[in-house]
């Protein structure tokens, strides 16, 4: 568990660096470090499927971010209501942590879920679907509706990007 906590600390530091960095390239690199830390955390928690997916999607997002956004630098707003912003953020964090402490006390311990259905998937997945990789048997057989919805979301996203970025049929202003 120690290495997981170290990784979480590393990811929090990386996220803070990504928010506070002066130029866009440093932010993108820090964001990539957070994503790679998340991939390692999945690997430590014994979820290699998620680790592979997180790694390749992180690489793709990093390439798109660097190629698409690196030329234009966003202006930063640094003056104005600094005290009010800091005070409101801190008070919200304190309220959130207090409520989370109250409500998360009764949850089951880490790694001991309450769901009976998941235990059923684990014990009968191989005999019911014949797939040796249990994650595949869950996402493509027991929960195939989820995968269908996810494919639809990706299809809609591609259609949206192509419609916004298209060249033909665009009215010149």
């Amino acid at each position: 568990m120690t290495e997981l906590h170290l990784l979480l600390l590393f990811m929090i530091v990386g996220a803070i660096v990504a928010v506070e960095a002066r130029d866009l390239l440093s932010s993108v690199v820090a964001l990539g470090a957070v994503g790679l830390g998340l991939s390692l955390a999945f690997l430590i928690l014994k979820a290699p499927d998620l680790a592979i997916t997180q790694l390749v999607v992180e690489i793709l997002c990093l390439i798109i971010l660097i190629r698409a956004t690196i030329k234009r630098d966003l202006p930063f707003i640094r003056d104005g209501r600094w005290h009010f912003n800091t005070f409101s953020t801190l008070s919200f964090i304190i309220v959130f942590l207090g409520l989370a402490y109250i409500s998360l006390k009764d949850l089951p311990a880490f790694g001991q879920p309450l769901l009976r259905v998941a235990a059923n998937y684990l014990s009968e997945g191989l005999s019911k679907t014949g797939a040796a990789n249990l994650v595949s048997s869950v996402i493509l057989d027991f929960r195939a509706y989820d995968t269908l919805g996810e494919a639809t979301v990706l299809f809609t996203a591609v259609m949206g990007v192509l419609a916004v970025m298209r060249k033909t049929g665009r009215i010149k202003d």
Partner: protein
Amino acid sequence: MTLIVKTITRLTVGLILLYGIYIVLHGHLTPGGGFPGGVIIALSFIHLMLAFGKDTALKRLNQLRASILESLGAIMFLGIAISGFLGGYFFLNFIKRGEAFNLFSAGIIPLCNIAICFKVGAGLFLIFVALVVLSNSQEK
């Protein structure tokens, strides 16, 4: 890009594509599956585009062909799901399951993996092309 990048790309891009296909085809046996395999296949074409420029990559897989592949993946996945009605209900595993731990086993799961691989690979490649190539060419 420089000569070093081009040479390394020429040597590795086929291996990356092959690894993506391996991840997809063994999705029901080892960690992986349609989504990460499709992203790896898309990354191999993006690798080609970053090293040799957009013309070389778009000659291999142009936008029309990629969008046809993406729609084909979606229709294939939906068709597999609907053909479950042959035996009873939506998403029924109607092909024989075979022996576990074999390459040809688990019924419709490898077919679904291949369909999702087409969808995700072509879709993410199209998003990359639209966001990077088209938006850059509009500024010029």
